[in-house]
């Protein structure tokens, strides 16, 4: 499989403009500015089948086309570099080692919607990454890729790197925009949608780092080449962040549709230390965990994982072996969501902490019969009733752990301690 996203990783000084240019960088950007119209650019990306890689999987070209072309308001392109999904570290790799691919993708996307100001919103904790991006932007300004009258075409574009302040919720696009506007990182009620009323009330598109990083390749090799990879509905390649009890953790690039089991056992070397697989989360901490027997027919694409009852999400693969206490794992994840809930709407604000507290007391030997069904009920009451998908993200894993490992939870409650052998 030809690498699209990881093609520059591992090359010395891959983050520098000189190396990026020597490997063909910014030729796509030049082609777009000199030779393409926004409408044909949007069509090209639509035909590639590229879908958003932040977790939602929304078709990228279609998202761009929602921006009203004749609106008198300025348009904004925002690169969502707020990667915070538990178990996900693919964007960080690109930010630190291939920032120019991200920036070039950002520029191309900005051009597609005729934006003249693009923002890269990077999570506050990635201090080094933000400096790398800023330096890369400076290099581009000196080289004339960013700024006024780019390539003498009359097109102006400014890129601003903006650091967040440490909130998972700011990865949700409208919360990101609230934060970028200088307010609390609270998601906004929709409608209206960012495409028409986004940053400062202007038409805005928010794209994930990985999504944007694929654009230079797509423009260089053509939409058809990208669409030739992957499955019918999930085109191209995707990055997977593999962590946990696995022999070879790391970031992998796979063609969409690659068999999950094969990936874990062969490419990643199987469960570490010769232990047995107990459970694996396919797409980041907010996605339902899968038991080993559920992996038989699962391929790593959007449709296949969804058919198995989970979601591809951000591709954060978290591997758990048979020494893992699932009660503790669930409690851990519940604590994350309770901590990160923005607190704006009632079900999530109150429900996340409630679930965390129940998981906590189960884990510490004070669980009661009825606790499990209570958590399932609370989870069901949160799902679908919140302002943003955070509520769902908190509710799904809580319910999934209990449903998939009910016996273990019941034993933990009955015996007032963890019953998983750690031999």
């Amino acid at each position, binding site marked *: 499989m030809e690498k699209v996203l990881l093609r520059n990783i591992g090359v010395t000084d891959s983050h520098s403009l000189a190396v990026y240019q020597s490997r063909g960088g910014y030729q796509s950007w030049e082609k777009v500015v000199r030779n393409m119209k926004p409408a044909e650019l949007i069509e090209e990306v639509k035909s590639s089948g590229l879908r958003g890689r932040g977790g939602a999987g929304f078709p990228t070209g279609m998202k761009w086309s929602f921006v009203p072309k004749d609106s008198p308001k300025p348009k904004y392109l925002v690169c969502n570099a707020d990667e915070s999904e538990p178990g996900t570290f693919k964007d960080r790799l690109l930010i630190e080692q291939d920032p120019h691919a991200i920036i070039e993708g950002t520029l191309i996307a900005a051009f597609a919607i005729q934006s003249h100001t693009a923002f890269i919103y990077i999570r506050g904790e990635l201090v080094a990454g933000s400096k790398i991006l800023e330096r890369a932007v400076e290099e581009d300004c000196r080289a004339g890729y960013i700024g006024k009258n780019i390539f003498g075409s009359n097109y102006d574009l400014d890129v601003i790197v903006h650091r967040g302040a440490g*909130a998972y919720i700011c990865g949700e696009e409208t919360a990101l925009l609230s934060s970028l506007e200088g307010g*609390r990182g609270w998601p906004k*009620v929709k*409608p209206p949608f960012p495409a028409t009323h986004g940053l400062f009330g202007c038409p805005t598109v928010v794209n994930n780092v990985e999504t944007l990083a694929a654009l230079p390749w797509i423009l260089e090799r053509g939409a058809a080449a990208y669409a030739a990879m992957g499955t019918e509905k999930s085109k191209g390649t995707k990055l997977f962040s593999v962590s946990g009890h696995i022999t070879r953790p790391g970031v992998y690039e796979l063609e969409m549709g690659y068999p999950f089991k094969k990936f874990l056992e062969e490419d990643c070397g199987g469960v570490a230390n010769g232990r047995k697989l107990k459970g694996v989360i396919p797409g980041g901490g907010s996605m339902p965990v899968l038991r080993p027997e559920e992996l038989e027919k699962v391929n790593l694409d959007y449709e296949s994982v969804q058919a198995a009852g989970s979601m591809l999400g951000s591709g954060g693969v978290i591997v758990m072996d048979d020494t893992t206490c699932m009660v503790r794992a669930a409690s851990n994840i519940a604590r994350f969501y*309770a*901590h*990160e*809930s*923005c*607190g*704006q*709407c*009632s*079900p999530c*604000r*109150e*429900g*996340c*902490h*409630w679930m965390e*507290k*129940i998981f*906590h*007391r189960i884990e510490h030997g004070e669980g009661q019969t009825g606790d499990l069904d*209570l958590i399932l009920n609370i989870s069901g*009451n949160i799902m*679908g*009733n*919140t*302002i943003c998908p955070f509520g769902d993200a908190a509710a799904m894993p809580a319910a999934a752990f209990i449903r998939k490992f009910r016996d273990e939870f019941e034993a933990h409650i009955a015996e007032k301690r963890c019953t998983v052998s750690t031999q």
Partner: protein
Amino acid sequence: MDPVKITIDGKEVVTAKGKTVIQAAAEAGVAIPHYCYHSKLSIAGNCRMCLVEIEKMPKLQIACNTQVAEGMGVLTQSPKVLAVRKAVLEFLLINHPVDCPICDQAGECQLQNYYMEHNREASRFEVGKQHDRKKTIFGPNVIFDGERCIKCTRCVRFCQEITKTDELAVINRGDHSTIALFNDQVLDNPLSANVVDICPVGALTDRDFRFKVRVWYLQKTPSVCPGCSTGCNISVEAYQNRIARFKPRINEAVNSHWICDEGRYCFHELTGGERLTTPMIRQEGGLVPATWENALQAVLAGLRSAKAAAGILSGRSTNEETFLFAKLMKKLAPSSPLEVCYQERELSETQKVLMSPDRAPNFRGARDMGVGSNGGYESLLQKLLTGDFSAAYVVGEELIGANGAGERLRAALQKLSFLVVQDIRLSETAKLAHVVLPATHFGEKEGTYTNRKGRVQKLNAAVIAPESVLQDWQTFLRLLDLAGEKLSYSTPSQIFQALAGEVALYRGISYATIGDQGIQLGGGGVEQS
């Protein structure tokens, strides 16, 4: 407006494009429970209490932010909706302190009300409630309890959007979220206590009313604020015949949903102090109690024999009282100038949202009745100071110390050969009088005020005056009778009917139709210099 047809619970409703489901439902008489939604504030959509089922949409939608569309089918009582209301209430109650026995909001609390209506189940929460600051003073009139707060953000939006003073903000994250004063401010804008009205729970409560009386004991009477000539519509709420608080009443033509802090608490000053319950006449050694008969005869004699008399009416006198006062003075001292006590002051931008620059709620009505003119009160005071008058009839106003003229006015009043003062207490002005007559205050009056913009609005008596005290209009009628003009009015309604016959602007208005929203006069507003 473009009409749009939707169905709500199977019933067809014609509404208009641009309305939200919650608005369309309210207009059709279907109540959808809600906390954060308020018709005068921006949409927050955070309480999730108004979730309803929209046919063909997979997820429930919040009614406050869903625009109506042709053919939309809304279900407000489906099993899914009833279940989610229960769930939202449960979420709001798990960290709620359930302070009801010590919380002023009890009896008018939307958590209590909706719980009784939509939940009624025992708590399933046993894992330790979140704690927050309790009884935290936010400002001179408002006190905050963080544990009771449901973070609906109505108070924050009020200070951002209505008063534009931005004192409040949400701080912290998740279930540590709480309301706080932003940037070391104090919640002291001129409309600050309105946040108490709009807070659906007991998180923001009124310091003045704190722990005074349970709201279900209050007797509530619709009336008009006597603070200034804006004429905000109020509910005067009393307990054991004493006014306990004002609450604003909704009138989109006057005050919308609001009342200013000065108006809200003005009843203390206007009704307080030791009450005058019997007429008094000056004899050697000072004022002594007298009978109504003797006192009224003395008034008649004093005014008739006066060389130059003046009449000063309170700006809080009703149209009915003013109408009779004018007739009386015309009879007893025909050329006497009659003025309403009227003074203007500078208002800040925030105050101007609601307040008028005067303290005379009925100066406009009084003018219509023939009492008062532009600049007239100032010039009358001047004439008083220069000794142009030998007699005066002062109704319902403390002149000494009221306007800075203070002691100079005292000296001038003392020089009058006849002074009659009609008031609820023995004011400094009254202590100088030759005859003192007890009076009623606004809370005991029935009648009408005409506000600055020419809206006739009705006052209703919220409390009963002491038995020996006559209504001001009864006093004027008795004086007129003794003076030879017997008018057979026995209610303010009859007086209004009479004045409507004599004052052109009021012709055609029937007292019975004034109702609790008032009637706008044809002439429109009046400018006061």
